[in-house]
């Protein structure tokens, strides 16, 4: 028997607002000072009235547009009722039957895997809906096991969230992780969320089950399990892997399928230390949240022109930018992905360099190798990196103009960096030319000097010449090296051609 893995995700994303969704309390992450960012609205005190954060709503619409969703012309707010200590009102303000957006998709590219021989593939993940809601507070449990009180911090209560619900379109834990990575990249490009997982800005629930192939060609579904509150991509991947193995073993032992007695949908948590999921609750029927429209909040209308206005403000989505980099700058898919995946500022840096050196390939080489290595070593963001794009672009332009060699350019680059470390100031374009002049790195076009050096080197290199003539083409490398050493700044290609010409006349 074999099976297909069926995965759908629900992702909660915290929007980047200054204030909460329905009140003016700060949304700052502030765990060390509990309960200092609350007011009658987010505490749920009687008589307090919520008012929607207009900026937060626009960020939510931007998010949905990035997910290729339809924006509803009319949306409203509903109360989802349940009891939990982190939910002071006894209900969460959410959206039930008229979410502000629905029916989108995200395309996910999955790289080839050399080890298993798996080819690269892509998966379109449909988005069922994205709706807005308020976050709950945070419970802190007594872990002593002595049954002491739990503590509640309501600083987070009322933080604006978008809940993104996918269709069950994902087919492996790797696809789920790749979807989350692509989602995070998109949301950070759009500047709608910082997606800081340590601070809980992006949280994921995974719905997992198996469709087991039967001998007669039909398929049987195992009971659906929702794994709650996964707060890292790695844990999401691990939890799904564990769940697949656990469900497969359970199905083989019991044959219980979805809908059978004992085959109800259940909710589980994930323990990363044990690498296992554990049961939270088993339900015979869906939880009864008794949704009803919140009379305290009025609907929001979005005209087509308002949606168009928000669309105009949106930056290019990472997937589109990746494709454009490949076609406009002749980058490989790999290079384009490396640059895009570093985030929007990094991609902007790349385009800044291309603008001044007019050579996408050269810029990509330097940025994905030299620049990336340096900022990692310095633990900097690209915005903090001392060599600004116009300076790096000017440096690369001097290579293309055959004013300096690539090797010399690396020397200048290193010099610019160490100078900026000492002076903590960003180097200027003119500094490039000063360094080139001071170190004598300019390509020497003085044919006489090069010819003289070649004659001298050939005169003492009978063995290398013989080796080269005997078919060992590598022997010429040593000759080029000696000439370059004698004439700093000579163009290696020119030197090579001249040596070959000189040898043929010996």
């Amino acid at each position, binding site marked *: 028997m074999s099976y297909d893995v069926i995965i759908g995700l629900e992702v909660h994303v915290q929007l980047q607002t200054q204030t909460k969704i329905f009140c003016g309390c700060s949304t700052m992450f502030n765990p060390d000072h509990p309960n200092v960012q609350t007011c009658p609205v987010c505490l749920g005190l009687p008589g307090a009235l919520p008012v929607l954060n207009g900026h937060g709503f626009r960020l939510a619409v931007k998010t949905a547009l990035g997910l290729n969703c339809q924006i509803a012309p009319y949306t409203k707010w509903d109360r989802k009722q349940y009891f939990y200590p982190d939910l002071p009102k006894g209900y969460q303000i959410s959206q039930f039957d008229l979410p502000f957006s629905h029916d989108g998709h995200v395309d996910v590219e999955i790289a080839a895997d050399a080890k298993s021989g798996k080819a690269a593939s892509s998966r379109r993940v449909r988005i069922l809906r994205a709706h807005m809601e308020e976050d709950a507070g945070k419970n802190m449990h007594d872990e002593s096991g002595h049954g002491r009180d739990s503590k509640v*911090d309501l600083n987070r209560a009322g933080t604006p969230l978008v809940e993104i619900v996918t269709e069950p379109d994902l087919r492996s834990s790797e696809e789920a992780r790749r979807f989350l990575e692509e989602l995070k990249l998109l949301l950070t490009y759009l500047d709608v969320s910082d997606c800081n997982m340590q601070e809980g800005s992006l949280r994921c629930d995974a719905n997992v089950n198996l469709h087991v192939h039967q001998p007669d060609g039909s398929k049987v579904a195992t009971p659906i399990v929702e794994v709650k509150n996964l707060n890292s991509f790695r844990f999401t991947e691990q939890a799904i892997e564990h769940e697949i193995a656990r469900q497969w073993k359970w199905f083989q032992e019991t044959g219980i399928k979805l809908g059978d007695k004992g085959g109800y949908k259940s909710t589980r948590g994930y323990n990363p230390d044990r690498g296992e999921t554990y049961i939270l609750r088993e339900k015979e029927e869906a939880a009864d949240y008794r949704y009803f429209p919140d009379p305290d909040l009025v609907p929001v209308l979005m005209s087509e022109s308002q949606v168009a206005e928000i669309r105009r403000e949106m930056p290019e989505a990472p997937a589109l930018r990746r494709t454009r980099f490949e076609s406009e700058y002749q980058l490989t898919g790999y290079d384009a992905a490396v640059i895009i995946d570093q985030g929007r500022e990094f991609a902007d840096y790349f385009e800044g360099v291309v603008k001044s050196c007019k050579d996408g390939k050269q810029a990509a080489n330097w940025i994905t190798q030299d620049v990336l290595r340096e900022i990692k070593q310095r633990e900097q963001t690209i915005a903090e990196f001392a060599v600004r794009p116009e300076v790096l672009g000017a440096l690369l332009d001097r290579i293309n103009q055959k004013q300096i060699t690539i090797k010399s350019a690396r020397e200048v680059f290193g010099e610019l960096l160490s100078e900026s470390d000492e002076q903590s100031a960003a180097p200027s374009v003119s500094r490039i030319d000063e360094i080139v002049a001071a170190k004598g790195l300019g390509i020497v076009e003085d044919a006489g000097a090069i010819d003289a050096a070649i004659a001298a080197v050939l005169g003492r290199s009978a063995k290398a010449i013989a080796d080269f003539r005997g078919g060992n083409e590598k022997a010429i490398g040593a000759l080029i090296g000696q000439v370059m050493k004698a004439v700093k700044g000579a163009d290696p290609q020119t030197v090579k051609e001249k040596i070959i010409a000189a040898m043929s006349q010996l």
Partner: protein
Amino acid sequence: MQLSHEHVRKVAALARLKVTDAEVESLLGDLTAILDYVGVLNDVDTTGVQPMVHAVELHDVLRQDTVAASLPRPEALDNAPRSDGEYFLVPTIIEG
């Protein structure tokens, strides 16, 4: 709609209310009276009428994203049955 004892018990359980059999009996009468009263509306012919989502004809009431003063912590915690001066205290939560 005919309300049953089970309906009443379920609604009570969802609201975390403990009700005695006698209370179920009397609540059944009360709730039935309320539903019957509202049920009068079922007689109105609503063919072709758009469903109403909100009783107030306002929309797009929005707030600027500007931070306003929050309550000082002592005031925030003041109405809680129990606190430790920093957190609200609640009986131990068993996860799940």
